[in-house]
């Protein structure tokens, strides 16, 4: 075992299967650390991490911050609302100013696809993509796959269904890359207005029939309807969406086998999924959140190991 094949985590696209398995191996160890009475290790105590969040986030930001603190790193947080960004400073200038204060790793969330890659080409720091527009959200995909593997033993040959707003979802694209690299079969299901045309190039099946797709799959990942991005009327109403593509208990009870349900959060209860389903034994939503910290610790550990002293 050597190192990750990459120096930054920009997207799952750039990782290979060995990288993903190495991340999972470390995540297992960190999960054990997180269950100790003292959940902290000193491994990154000589490193400083900046969380640059140009887009709002609760789960991902807290998860990254906890991962950094439990690895002993120093952490600085930045969010767009309270920064000089509103005074017109560019992304590179903001990042370089923060780096001038001796920061080793930048965790970036940005609304522009490719923002993390752009930054990695222009500043001298390790970059971790925490979501770039509708492009990739690699840590989410890794924690999703890790959670599935934990429940089902393996990802290989498993049938995974991604339901909903694939067009606007960075989670969907990263999940497709990650699951396929681990040998899963991936299908997406949603209204045709929310399924991007490029999917046929990614060897992904497309369906518009939710019941038939749920019957096909072992695991369903229910995406959030991004209400803030629905100004173009991709579907007539939330109520109609819920009727055609919402997952409810009646639908699950009609299936011939039990399936595993994931959701990246935040959940619109009653729209893409009903409350009783979220809280049922099929749902591993809270396992995903717990595993998120371990996955992020694993990534920070493996990337930091490559930083020259």
């Amino acid at each position, binding site marked *: 075992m050597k190192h990750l094949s990459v120096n930054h985590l920009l997207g799952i696209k750039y990782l290979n299967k060995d990288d993903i398995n190495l991340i999972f191996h470390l995540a297992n*160890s960190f999960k054990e650390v997180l269950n100790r009475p003292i959940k902290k*290790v000193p491994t990154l105590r000589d490193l400083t991490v900046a969380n640059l969040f140009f887009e709002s986030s609760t789960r991902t930001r807290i998860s990254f911050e906890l991962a950094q603190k439990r690895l002993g790193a120093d952490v600085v947080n930045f969010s767009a609302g309270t920064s000089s960004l509103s005074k017109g400073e560019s992304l590179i200038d903001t990042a370089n100013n923060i780096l001038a204060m001796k920061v080793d790793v930048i965790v970036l969330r940005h609304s522009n696809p490719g923002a993390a890659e752009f930054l990695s080409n222009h500043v001298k720091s390790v970059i971790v993509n925490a979501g770039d527009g509708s492009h990739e959200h690699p840590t989410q995909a890794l924690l999703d796959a890790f959670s599935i593997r934990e429940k089902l033993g393996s990802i290989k040959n498993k049938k995974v269904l991604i339901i909903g707003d694939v067009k606007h979802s960075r989670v969907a694209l990263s999940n497709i890359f990650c699951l396929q690299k681990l040998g899963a079969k991936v299908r997406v299901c949603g209204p045709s207005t929310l399924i991007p045309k490029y999917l046929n190039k990614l060897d992904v099946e497309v369906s518009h029939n939710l019941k038939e797709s749920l019957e096909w799959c072992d695991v369903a990942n229910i995406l959030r309807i991004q209400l803030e991005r629905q100004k173009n009327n991709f579907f007539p109403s939330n109520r109609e969406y819920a009727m055609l593509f919402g997952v409810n208990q009646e639908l699950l009870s009609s299936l011939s086998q039990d399936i595993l349900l994931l959701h990246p959060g935040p959940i619109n209860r009653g729209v893409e999924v009903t409350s009783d389903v979220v809280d049922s034994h099929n749902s591993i939503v809270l396992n995903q959140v717990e595993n998120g910290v371990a996955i992020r610790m694993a990534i920070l*550990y493996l990337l930091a*190991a490559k930083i*020259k002293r």
Partner: protein
Amino acid sequence: MRHDKKFQYNMSDRKIILNVDQLKLTITRLSSEIIENHIELIDKCAIIGMQPRGVQLSQQIHTMLEYETGYSVKYGLLDSTFFRDDFRRREDVIIPNKTNIEFSLEGLNVILIDDVLFTGRSVRSSLDALVSFGRPNSVELLVLIDRRFSRELPIQPKYIGKSIDVIENEHVVVNLDGNNSSVILLNEKS
């Protein structure tokens, strides 16, 4: 699995330090010493094997302790990778082994077990890692082989199988597999 460098050994230049029979005697003696010191509070004892190479020895000693005393003795495995002092100083990333301690160490007398004591750095990191599981009443160190005069930290075992003097390019190899058990000294090819 992790910090094993691929050494080339000069196989003709090997010396047996302990053969099967001697090893058996040594492990029995080490177990007896633990019993002698802890018999009155054996339920307050915890045997902790250090990953990766202290595992087999700790299992054998733990089995012997339970057999000889008739009591159940707490047992766990500890990996101290995240507490090591050489992170970012090695060519390869350090991959951890499994830690499995399913009880609190608060107030227990811990006996930490490894096969060979060399620089003392692994023991140092293990002592730090142990505290994550509670504050032990005491920690004692047991090693099968003590490589004298090679310590880089002030660490001294309480229970020693055998002390040996080894020069830098010699390697101690411990094998605890049944009838093939032995401790041998190998000379690295220059």
